[in-house]
């Protein structure tokens, strides 16, 4: 496909940068999809529970799958940081800091209330999802406000 001749040198560079970025997102998705499919299928075979997704698999396969996921995730993070500009990095820093602070405040407070027998035991998953959700909300707010 030929580039439209009206594009300036900067616009072409910006277009390439965007293409590289979305290419990396696509590659990460293609990389993660077979793993997700495998786990989903495995979970389906085991009464539909994700907790049972690894049942019956040899430890070497489980270790291999997890290693693959971690390597893929780290590669994605590295490529993301390499591809994005400083505004995107600042947005990410705000989002991760907000999520981290929520985690740091919520967990000990909940834990102390639990120790005082006022509330039930802290839910790790709920705190994790709330932290991720709060971070994402801050990220989207900055995107919406800044752009």
């Amino acid at each position, binding site marked *: 496909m030929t580039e439209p001749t009206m594009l300036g*040198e900067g*616009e072409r560079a*910006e*277009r390439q940068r965007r293409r590289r970025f979305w290419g990396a997102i696509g590659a990460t998705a293609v990389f993660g999809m077979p793993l997700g499919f495998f786990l989903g299928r495995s979970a389906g075979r085991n009464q539909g529970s994700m907790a049972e997704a690894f049942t019956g698999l040899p430890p070497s396969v489980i270790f291999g799958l997890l290693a693959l996921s971690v390597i893929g995730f780290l590669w994605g993070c590295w490529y993301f940081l390499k591809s994005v*500009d*400083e*505004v995107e990095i*600042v947005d990410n820093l705000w989002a991760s800091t907000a999520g981290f602070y929520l985690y740091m405040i919520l967990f000990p407070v909940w834990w102390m209330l639990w120790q005082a027998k006022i509330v039930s035991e802290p839910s790790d998953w709920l705190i994790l999802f709330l932290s991720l959700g709060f971070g994402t909300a801050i990220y989207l707010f900055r995107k919406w406000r800044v752009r």
Partner: protein
Amino acid sequence: MENRLRVLRAERNWSQAELGGRLGVSRQAVNAIETGKHDPSLPLAFKLARLFERSIEEIFDDGTNHAG
């Protein structure tokens, strides 16, 4: 921080994407700087200054330029 980026860009008839490409940042980043919602890092400010052949103080005004 106030700046003259939009004017300088218009003088060269560049779009935000064009300027972003020349600086190695996204169009959204250029917009964020132009509207004063993001203060650029020192390396990016120097890049802008070199690109427009102006000093950083000629492009950005932190409100103290005319104080003394």
